[in-house]
Every structure is written in C-alpha cells, then in structure tokens.
C-alpha cells in the first residue's frame, strides 16, 4: 500500500505547505473537518448515446409487441420464449430491491428485463458479479431517464446541456464544478484534490472546477522523465514561474502542478487491488485509478470517467450478441471489480462512501435501421451503484405505444437526470446548494416529489427554496 494522504501531509515539503495557502485554495470555504463524511461521487458518462431499449427491455404486454415489431434483428428474447440468443433476465423486487410503482412488474404483464450480458449469471461461483450486487440490493436502475428540458438528437448539444446543467448550451462552468465550488464546508481542507477527471480530456461537467486533477492513468501521471538530477530544481523553477504570473494560463497551470505533485507523491508503489479483483479494459483501468485515489484518502469527492463506443448506427449485434453486448460486458466487469475492490473484506468498507452513476446523452430510436443498428433517439436510462444505494428500479415507464413515443419515434423522458443527481448531492455529498448547481431546478425537484429514494442519507433544505407563499423554507427537512 502506498503512502496515504495523511502520512504524506505529515512529511510535507515547504512547497506543499505553500500550496495549501495559495489563492486557489482560498476560493473554498472550509468547515469543521470533523463533520466530513468522505463520500465520493463517480460519474461515468457513456459517450455516444447508449441503446437503453436493449438494456432495460420490455418483457410483456403490448409494449413487448411494439418492441419486437420495431426490432426484428436486434430484439432480445425472453426466458423460455422464442427468438435467438441468450434471453434477458428478470428484474424482480424483493426485501432489498424496490420496484417503484411507476414501473410495470412481471406480474401485471409488463415488466422490464435486463440485457443478459450486462448482468450475467453464468458464473455463479464468482463473488461480486454485477448480478450479485443487484441481488444484494446495491444496484439501481432508472429507465426513461435523461434530459427532460430539451429534445435534441445531437450528441454534442445533449452532452453540453447535461454537463453544463443550465438547461441550455450556454454556461461557463460545469455542474460538478459548481457543486465543488459550493460544497466547501464538506471538502477536506487538508486535501488538495477534490475532483478528478479520468481520461485525456476534462469533461464539461468539471469545467472550471477548483482543485481538479486529470489523467488517463494515475500511474503515468508524473514528471519522472528527463535527467533525474535536475528534476527537483526544474520543478521548483516551474512552480516559481507559474506562481509569478497572474493569467488564467498560470492559474490553471498551478492546478496542474499541484495535482502532479500530490499524485506523484502518493503513487510511489504499484497498486495491488483486493484479492480476486482484475481490472481489464479502459473503463476498468479508469475505475482502478479512482479506487486508488479513494484508498489513498486524497480528499477526492467527485470523479468523472468517459467511456465511448455507444454510437451504434451500424451492426450493433443481433439479439444479445455482437459489439453492443461486448461493450456491456466491459461495463459489467469494470463495475463489478470496482465494487469488489472497494468492498474489501473488513467492516466499514470504502464502497459505503462511494456512489457510481452511469449515464449517457440520449437513448436510441425504437425502430432499428436497415444496417441492423439504431439511430439517435431520446429517453435513455441511468444506473446507480454503491454501498449506500437502495437497489431497485425507480421512476416510471412511459410505454412504447404510438401515443407514448416522442416524435413518433423515441422513448419519452420521465425522470430528469438532475433528479437523480440532486438526490445524491444532497444525501451523499451533503450539498444543499442545488439552485446554484442546477439553476431553476429545485422547484421542479420539489413539485415532482423530491428524491426517488435511490440512496441513503439525510435530506437537507435545498437552498434557496422559495415556497409559493413567498417565504424561504425554514424547514430542516424539506422532503421528510
């Protein structure tokens, strides 16, 4: 195990001490560190628009007929039913798994089943498969989720609007950046890295965030290159130049330099995950970097991961096979291994601090195209996984009958992505400043019933909440 942050700070250099007093840090207001819960949000954004229609699959009633008619090649069979390929799996409720009233259940003839390669059961002896996480009640699905404000079938507009969180393509910072900027009292004042963007580019959601690191791979995020004799002196000189300039280029450069100082110092040795955990594939590698940061106790609160390969216009794979199924398998194994790694074997596991949210910019058209692929659609789905997640299926199902579809083509959005995110920000990350994070959204959050109950935690009065009588909320528990 490499040095944790507290050990690292214990032996800190003058440069690091100077950092802690830098103007960058003073932008945040810190509270009593004793109240910190150390919780982390991991936001996985699946770029390209995933075909949620073939992940949460209508399994009965008239919607099944619409689905099969629209997808002659791509449809996924039901257990015991006709059709090729591995059948979908039933998502049934239980004591540990909630099926929301708006979701059709198997018994009343509807029901949503799940793609077999996202949730396989074929290796029942392997602990920690995603199916086990579902069975334990630590995995939730939200069908028909997405961007309710605007119907756009543009990848780039949809991603931009979701990530800015402003309801438009205008804005100067991302919603996660505004979360970090307003949640100073819940950020570790000793820590310097509150946000991490895993990947070669920082996503719009973190645009403008203070105290953010970004890297493709935590273990190559260092400056251990060039003549070692002169690396320390070069680093000092670079810091002097960067601190000596006042431009944005310098300020953001200081963030970069701080980030590499911290990460480099903390990742001296090879990381060894928990026994039985194997991180394979780019999504898994990204999650491994997050797991390392969580265990290193660097003060991380938000991590973002981009994972592409979902723009399946062409040959996405018939039935449950092909490239789309393979991509789902990468998601499955990455999530399952991450969970297993952070669950560990002892009490008070790391996974209890971590909430993973999986989302995409839109779903795809109900009707498959002639290339056995699917074109851009609208409503899609979200997944939420974590130690404090209440497993189940949440929200409501808008149906696939002709009158149910948007523009006669696409699944409707019945749960705005901000509803899920707001609940997590409030209950897990203790940030009530939702009006700042998602401008104009709190009223809608309230009028649509508040939290769905996907995660455990306390509801805080969301600020500012203006009730219809014009008085600001004085309640300590707006959603009881």
């Amino acid at each position, binding site marked *: 195990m490499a040095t944790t942050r507290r050990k690292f700070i214990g032996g800190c250099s003058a440069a690091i001490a100077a950092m802690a007093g830098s103007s960058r840090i003073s932008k945040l207001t810190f509270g009593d560190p004793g109240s910190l819960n150390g919780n982390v949000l991991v936001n996985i954004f699946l770029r390209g628009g995933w075909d949620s229609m073939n992940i949460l699959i209508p399994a009965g009633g008239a919607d099944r007929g619409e689905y099969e008619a629209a997808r002659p090649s791509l449809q996924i069979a039901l257990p015991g039913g006709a059709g090729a390929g591995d059948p979908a799996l039933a998502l049934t409720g239980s004591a540990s798994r909630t099926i929301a009233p708006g979701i059709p259940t198997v018994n009343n003839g509807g029901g949503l089943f799940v793609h077999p390669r996202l949730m396989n059961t074929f290796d029942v002896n392997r602990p920690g498969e995603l199916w086990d996480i579902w069975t334990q009640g630590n995995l939730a699905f939200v069908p028909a989720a997405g961007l309710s404000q605007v119907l756009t079938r543009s990848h780039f507009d949809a991603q931009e609007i979701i990530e800015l969180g402003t309801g438009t393509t205008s804005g100067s910072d991302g919603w996660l950046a505004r979360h970090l900027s307003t949640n100073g009292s819940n950020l570790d004042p000793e820590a310097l890295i509150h946000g991490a963007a895993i990947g070669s580019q920082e996503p719009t959601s973190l645009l403008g965030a203070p105290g953010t690191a970004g890297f493709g791979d935590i273990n*190559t995020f260092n400056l251990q290159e*060039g003549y070692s004799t*002169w690396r320390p*002196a070069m680093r000092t000189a670079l810091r002097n130049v960067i601190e000596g300039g006042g431009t944005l280029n310098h300020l953001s450069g200081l963030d970069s330099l701080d980030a*590499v100082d911290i990460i480099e110092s903390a990742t001296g040795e090879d990381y060894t995950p928990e026994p039985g955990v194997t991180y394979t594939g780019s999504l898994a590698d990204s999650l491994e970097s997050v797991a390392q940061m969580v265990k290193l106790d660097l003060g991380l609160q938000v991590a973002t991961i981009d994972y592409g390969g979902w723009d399946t216009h*062409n040959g996405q794979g018939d039935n449950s096979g092909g490239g789309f199924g393979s991509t789902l398998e990468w998601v499955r194994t990455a999530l399952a291994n991450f969970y297993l790694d952070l669950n560990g074997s002892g009490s008070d596991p790391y996974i209890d601090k971590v909430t993973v949210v999986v989302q995409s910019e839109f779903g795809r058209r109900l009707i498959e195209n*002639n290339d056995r692929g699917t074109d851009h659609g609208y409503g899609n789905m979200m997944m939420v996984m974590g130690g404090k997640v209440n497993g189940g299926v949440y929200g409501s199902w808008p149906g696939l009958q002709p009158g149910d579809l948007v523009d006669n083509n696409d699944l409707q959005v019945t749960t705005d992505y901000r509803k899920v995110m707001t609940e997590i920000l409030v209950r897990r990350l203790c940030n009530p400043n939702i009006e700042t994070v998602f401008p104009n959204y709190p009223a809608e959050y309230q009028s649509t019933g508040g939290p769905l109950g996907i995660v455990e935690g306390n509801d805080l009065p969301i600020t500012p909440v203006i009730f219809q009588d014009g008085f600001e909320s004085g309640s300590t528990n707006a959603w009881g």
Partner: protein
Amino acid sequence: MSQPEAFVGSLDDDDQGSELPLYDTPRAQSTLTDPNRYDGLATSEERGAPDLYVLAVSRLGYGHKHGQRAEWNALGANEQERWDNYLKQQLDPDNNDGADAFPGHPGTIDDSDYTTRKAAAGYQTLDLTLHELWRDYERDLLGVTSSNDPQEECELDWFLRSIYTKRQLEQTMTEFWVDHFNIYSVESPTESIWPDWVKMLSGHAFGNFHSLLYDTAHHPAMLYYLDQYTSQFAGPNENYARELVELHTLGAENYLGVLPQAAVPNTKWAAYSAQLGGLFHPTLGIPDGYVDNDIFQAAAALAGWTFEGAPGTGAGETDGPTGGEYFFETDWHPNTAQMTCLGFGVINIQSTTPRALRGDRVLEMLAYHPGTARHVCRKLVRKFVSEAAADQDTPGSLVHTAADVFFTERNSPVQIRKVLEHIFASTEFLNSFGSKIKRPFEVIVSMLRATRAHFDFSLGGDETSSFLSHFGRTGHRPFRWSPPDGYPDVRGNWETAAPRVMTWRMGQWFADTRTDADNLFMPIRTITPGSVPRTPNGLVDYWLDRIFPQGVSASYREEIVDFMAQGFNPDTTLIIEDNNSTEWRLQMMIALIMATPEFSER
C-alpha cells in the same frame, strides 16, 4: 543577485533586427470560474501589441523558427510591407491563383527544407493515388505490405511538415479541415487510404467550400467513418447525414430541433434569398435552420453512396481497376424516390433528378446556405482570433462580416482565401495576441522549430514509436480523436491537468532521449553558437531570445537564470561537456521553458 534591467539584445545573427519588447504581465483579475474565462490573459493592448512578425509566426503557423526573422525581414522594407508579402506568399504559396493572383506576389515559397527531409525519411505511401493505396495496402493480395503503414507515415509526415514546411498557413488550414471533417484514422480500411484523405484536404486548404464538401462526401474514408457506405433508402443510416449538417455545414447553432419542416421560419436569411436563385423554395426562400426531418430526408437522398469494395456490402468491384473509389449503388436507392430537404415540407428533390445526384442537391443547399457561412466562419475566427470574437453574434461582428465574404465568394475557387484575408485584416485579429494557447501538438512542434532539434520521423526510426506513445498521452495525437467533432479548439479543454502535465513530461522525455548512436536528438550544447558566453546569463539570454520573438518579462528571465545558476554567480563560466551534469541541466532548461505558461501563449 543582480540582474540586468533590460533584456539582453539578440545574439543570433539570423535574428538581427528583431525587436524585443520587455513587458511585465499585468495581474489578471479572473479566476477559473470567471464567466469570461478566456479573457483571463492580459490583452496585447495592456502590454503593448507584439509586432506583426509575432502574429504571423504564432497564429498563421506553428511558432517562431530559428532563423525565420531574417526571412521575414527580406520580405520588405517595413513591417507592413513584410506582413503584406508574407500573407500573399502564405495564401498562394505556388503563385498560381490565376485571375485571383495577388498583384506583386513576392514569388513562390522554396520549401526544400521540408521536402528534402521528407525524401530522407523514405516514406513509401504518401504520393500514391487512392486506388493504389486501396490495392496495395488495404487489399494487398500479394501479402507484402502492412495495412497501417500509410496511416503511420502520414502521421509522421504530419509532424515533419508542421515543423519544417515554410507553407505554414497551408498546413495550419489543413489541420483546421482535418479537425472540421474529423475522422478517426486508426481502423481498417481507413488507415490504408489515409494519405489520400489528408492530401485531398490540403489541396482545398484555401479553396472553395462546396468543392471541399463534395470531395469529403465522396471520399471512402468519410463514407466509412460515418456509416454512409451501407446506407439504403429503406431504413437509412442517419449517422453521416446528421454530422454533415450539424458539424460540417449548418452547425448545431442552426438546429431547431424536432419541428415539422413546414413550421420552420424563413425570416433570418431573407436578405440572401434572391442571390441563391432557385436553390431553395421559390417563394418561401431559405429556412432559418434545420430540423430532424431534414436529417432524415438528407439521409434518404444520400442512400446508395458507398465505395467499390466497401466491407460487407458487396458494392462495386473490390479488386477492380477503381477499387476503393466512390460508387453509387443503384439497388439501394429506388428511382421513384423523392424528398423534401430544407424545403418547408414541399418536395424539392424530385424523382426526375437522377438518383445518383439527389445527394448532390443536398450538398449544394448545405454549402450555399448562409447559416453554413456563419458556422464555418465562426470556427475560423475561433481558430485564428479568439473564442471571445467567435462568440460574437451581432451585425458587424467579425463572424458576420467574414460570413458575408464567405457567402459572396461562394463560387470562387479561392473562397476560403478571401475569407482569411478578411479575418487577417481585422482589428480583432491584429489585437488578439495572447488570446489563444498552443495545444499539445503545437507546443511540441514549436519547441522543435525553435531549437531546430533533429528528429527524423521515419517509420521505424530511432525512438519513433517511443516519441509517438509519449505524445499520445497528451491526448492530442494526430488523426486519433474518435468522435466526429474534432479536437477542441477551446482553451479550457487544454488548460487542464491531463494534457498539460503529459505535455511537460513529453518535453522532459525529449531532453534526454538519444539516437541509437547515442547522440541527443536535441543537443542544446552543440546547437548553441560558440560566440554565446557559457554563463547562466549568456545561455539564458541566447535561448530566450531564440525561443520568444515576443520577448519575456524580467522576472521570468530571472527564474530561468536561477535554474541555470543554481545559486552561483550567473556570470560564472560553466563547464559544459558531453553528458556531464551541466549539459543535463542545459537540456532540462529547455524542457523547463517549454513547460512554462509563457511558452504556450500565442
């Protein structure tokens, strides 16, 4: 320690006559969350505008090259004359624009510095035709070639060309089109035919937008990347049609969402309508923007566009004399079909139009629509001026006036050249130094231009693969952006930890990397002229002068001197020998300078 107050004058014979403005960067008020975040840098006005030479090399190319100031000075008697001649030469490097020729063109560019190195690198594939690439590398029936060699050679040449060509603006514009019509190149069959795609874009660098659009739409690399090559009229694949409209032409700024075509307003472009003759609706004119049904209809019109031998389609003759070239598959497009695209719900692509030409109608409407002029010019302004200028959307703004030139010159073979001339003559452009930063590619290339370090970029050359893998970590490796929108040209995307730290690391890697014969690729000790005092002051002044044509602040210089002096008197003569610790320090000084924010300003 005491430092000279003023910047030491030029020590480089090549750079005699350069002016070295000394400025202290004012403290900007912005923070990371400032809504005007890209205005964080001090404007050139606040610190004195740099001379035209600095703009010419940092905006119209990949940075100041050692010796380039002398070439500039030879272009005229004063700065304005040099600037005018430089533009003429860069915008028409072969002086063959015919009726549009610049009066007093200073003569064609001698590009032998680049072409000699290109020849020495021994590339085999870059001058082959599309069909030859298809036949010899994609098909390779004799099994004697490697299908990814063309892509790899093209990428290596991309570095070589950006560093050494004197046709700097042509290369910059080619990069603009590579980003604008982005394709992920590292897959089959794209990798085999890649040099033809890049050559095609380069040929249109300053040309006519409709011609360029037409060639991109018919190129197998594009047909493959956006799935057009399999699309049939029944259940068409919308991938290409959507990005054609959203990214290549009208842009998302003209997307009106899910409206019926008949509900699209027709007021925004009314002033342009008469000039377009019968291209759009005879009475309703030009639609304000596009809706989803326009995408569906465009996809229908384009059905059947594929290429000979397109994988898995049976289209055309895979190994015939035109294998790999554009092919229209009549079986996929019924003769009786008709469409309404950008036409207010009225059929405007008739079944009497030959089916192979129905897609061309769509391309014409898109290329000549004034909304496309705005979108493309907005991107050009962002590329060459600033994000702030690109975001302006008011009458008289640079985006609007440039778009009017784009529209007026829509039939000109030098349409893009005319637009660039307009942009480069604008006040916004002339006052914009510092509003842009170098992306990682530009950082590395400009470092190599300034040092004239030699890296041969040959396939399989010493350290070539290590160079590329290190560069890949910056997230800016040429031709590898996978979504169709191209590498971002927004500084916020690059002023973040991942690309920046990996670019610093790349510079440090370059500082101590050696050839198989154990020579440094960037031997600063031997590059430094013998006349330069081997003191910290002497070495730093020489190299700062060589790297920064715009000069640096005294405090900046002091930090670099401190690094070289390491606590000793900066006038002490240093013992710098092959592979001794002082040479290592000198090498790392270049990596240090390259890593500073000052180096990435442009």
